[in-house]
């Protein structure tokens, strides 16, 4: 039976034998809140997580009313880190208020946006913080069952999670009578099968229900009618990973960090031809230039900066003179550039924008679920037009068609995938139009 004395006992025993080495930070910007256990503890040992005050947040939440838990989350200002930025406390409140005997929590671990891998890091290196966050959400809304929808591309995360869940059952952190209360909670892992659209919460729910991952019409939102038509909270991995600390430290602790409209920290994953690709937790509100110069360490020798791509194949480009913009859901959300889930891909002058846009169009064409016409047919058309221009067979009318098609897809698609499928094309046309025009037949000068 787990109780507070037992937690303390485990903690004392570990601390007698292990001295944790905190990760040294070599610049003045990084913080390690969500990453506090990453590369510090052995993720396969629940005892080491407990020694770092693990499951204390769950214990505290069980001694609070659901309203108090939700109030703390609202005070923290935490917004969902999967890309949409919806206030987490409010989401929980809606599910709490929805009347139902059965409610569900789902961890969205279907991190599929190319360029993003912060969730993989958390799941592989600190799985219990996510499980604990999920359990606190369950306490808040009154759920007794949780699912972790994990993409199959992450076999290591699967292994680590299997062990973490088994350890939770062994210590009676999962199961019934948790911390000697009447709280019951069980968790099941469901593996994805390689469909990017299943990162969309209603498509994910369809997939857990054993169907094709095609998004549902909203409303009703999942907090009212989700999995098996019961109230369901779907939260992203990174979002849940910080919940235990918010409960332990209080809402205002989190709120004080970062940009006031997107409080807290964001884990950014950095890729491309820069000196220090990797993952970094930073307070929100930093200029992108800091991420480029101080975190990514500038371009590798031999490569010149061209642009940074936010949001992978559905995002937008920032050029040199736009790097003053600050990270955050509202501060970046302009002209198709969104913070998304926090991945930054740095492009060098060797990268051809038309060819990248064509590759991203192929991705979106492949990942379209096929349900609505604008996305299903539009992404195909986009790919055809971009291929034609890339092959230097396009004429100036093709650029007009390209723009029209892009706007048509964005305005009339059913879900977020279609609505953002043409972002990179529009961003490319706006910011690198000369590269498109240079490939047109009438502009090449030889014909």
């Amino acid at each position, binding site marked *: 039976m787990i109780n507070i004395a037992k937690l303390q006992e485990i903690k004392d025993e570990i601390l007698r034998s292990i001295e944790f080495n905190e990760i040294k930070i070599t610049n003045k910007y990084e913080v390690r809140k969500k990453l506090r256990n990453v590369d510090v503890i052995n993720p396969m040992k629940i005892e080491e997580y407990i020694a770092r005050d693990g499951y204390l947040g769950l214990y505290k939440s069980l001694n609070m009313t659901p309203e108090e838990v939700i109030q703390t989350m609202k005070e923290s200002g935490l917004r969902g880190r999967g890309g949409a930025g919806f206030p987490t406390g409010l989401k929980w409140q809606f599910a709490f208020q929805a009347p139902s005997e059965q409610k569900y929590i789902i961890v969205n671990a279907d*991190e*599929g*946006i*190319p*360029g*993003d*891998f912060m969730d*993989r890091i958390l799941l592989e290196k600190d799985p219990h913080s996510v499980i604990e966050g999920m359990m606190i959400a369950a306490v808040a809304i009154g759920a007794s069952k949780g699912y972790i929808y994990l993409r*199959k*591309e*992450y*076999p290591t995360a699967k292994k680590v999670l299997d062990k973490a869940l088994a350890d939770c059952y062994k210590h009676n952190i999962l199961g019934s009578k948790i911390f000697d209360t009447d709280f019951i909670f069980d968790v*099941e892992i*469901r*593996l*994805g*099968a*390689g*469909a*990017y659209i299943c990162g969309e919460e209603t498509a994910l729910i369809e*997939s*857990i*229900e*054993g*169907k*094709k*991952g095609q998004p549902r019409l909203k409303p009703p939102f999942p907090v009212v009618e989700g999995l*098996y038509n019961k109230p369901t909270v779907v939260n992203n991995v990174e979002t849940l990973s910080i919940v235990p600390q918010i409960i332990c430290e209080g809402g205002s602790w989190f709120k004080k960090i970062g940009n006031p409209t997107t409080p807290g920290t964001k884990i950014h*994953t*950095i*890729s*491309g*031809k820069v000196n220090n*690709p*990797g*993952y970094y937790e930073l307070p929100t509100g930093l200029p992108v230039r800091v991420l480029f110069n101080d975190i990514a360490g500038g371009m590798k020798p031999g490569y010149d900066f061209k642009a940074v*791509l936010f949001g*992978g*194949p559905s995002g937008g480009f920032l050029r040199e003179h736009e790097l003053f913009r600050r990270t955050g859901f509202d501060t970046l959300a302009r002209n198709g550039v969104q913070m998304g889930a926090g*991945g930054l*891909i740095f*492009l060098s002058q060797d*990268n051809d924008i038309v060819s*990248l846009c064509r*590759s*991203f169009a*192929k*991705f979106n064409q*492949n*990942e379209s*679920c096929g349900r609505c016409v604008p996305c299903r047919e539009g992404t195909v058309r986009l790919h055809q037009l971009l291929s034609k221009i890339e092959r230097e067979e396009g004429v100036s009318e093709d650029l007009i068609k390209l723009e029209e098609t892009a706007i048509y897809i964005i305005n009339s698609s059913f879900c977020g995938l279609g609505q953002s499928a043409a972002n990179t094309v529009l961003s490319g046309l706006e910011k690198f139009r000369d590269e498109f025009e240079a490939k047109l037949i009438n502009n090449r000068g030889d014909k």
Partner: protein
Amino acid sequence: MSRMKISKNEVDNIKSIIKKNSNHDTPLIEILHEINNVYKCVPLIASKIISEALDISMSSVRSTCTFYDFFTEEPLGDTVIQVCEGASCVVSGAEELTSVLKKKLSIDEKHTTKDNKVSVEIVYCNGHCDKAPTMKINEKLYTDVDLFDMGAILKEHIE
């Protein structure tokens, strides 16, 4: 159509996979995962058995099966090469890896060499974007792959 022939034993095996997964509320995808793991594809006969066992239409089973990239109705080769063409990998030259690979193995977009030994698949994001480009061969991950590396990696698995 699947080239796979199924014996009585295998029919029983498929049935036991279905039974094993039937403790889930909605087991279809779990069943497809396991069958795909065992047979390296989901043969039509398996879809038929699933449809009867779960009392759902054959078209539901097959449309779900073909919706997900991980399931395939055609058996893949013994060696499955997955080249990531996610954004970070493309920025770092993944498309060149794919085209060289396909030329070398003389296969086109779909998928498998004539002798059914090697399949090449395009996948989107293995989640190791800081070490792009990446590829997996029979689930083994390779990072920071360039054309030179790829030659050596291939030698390890085929020939």
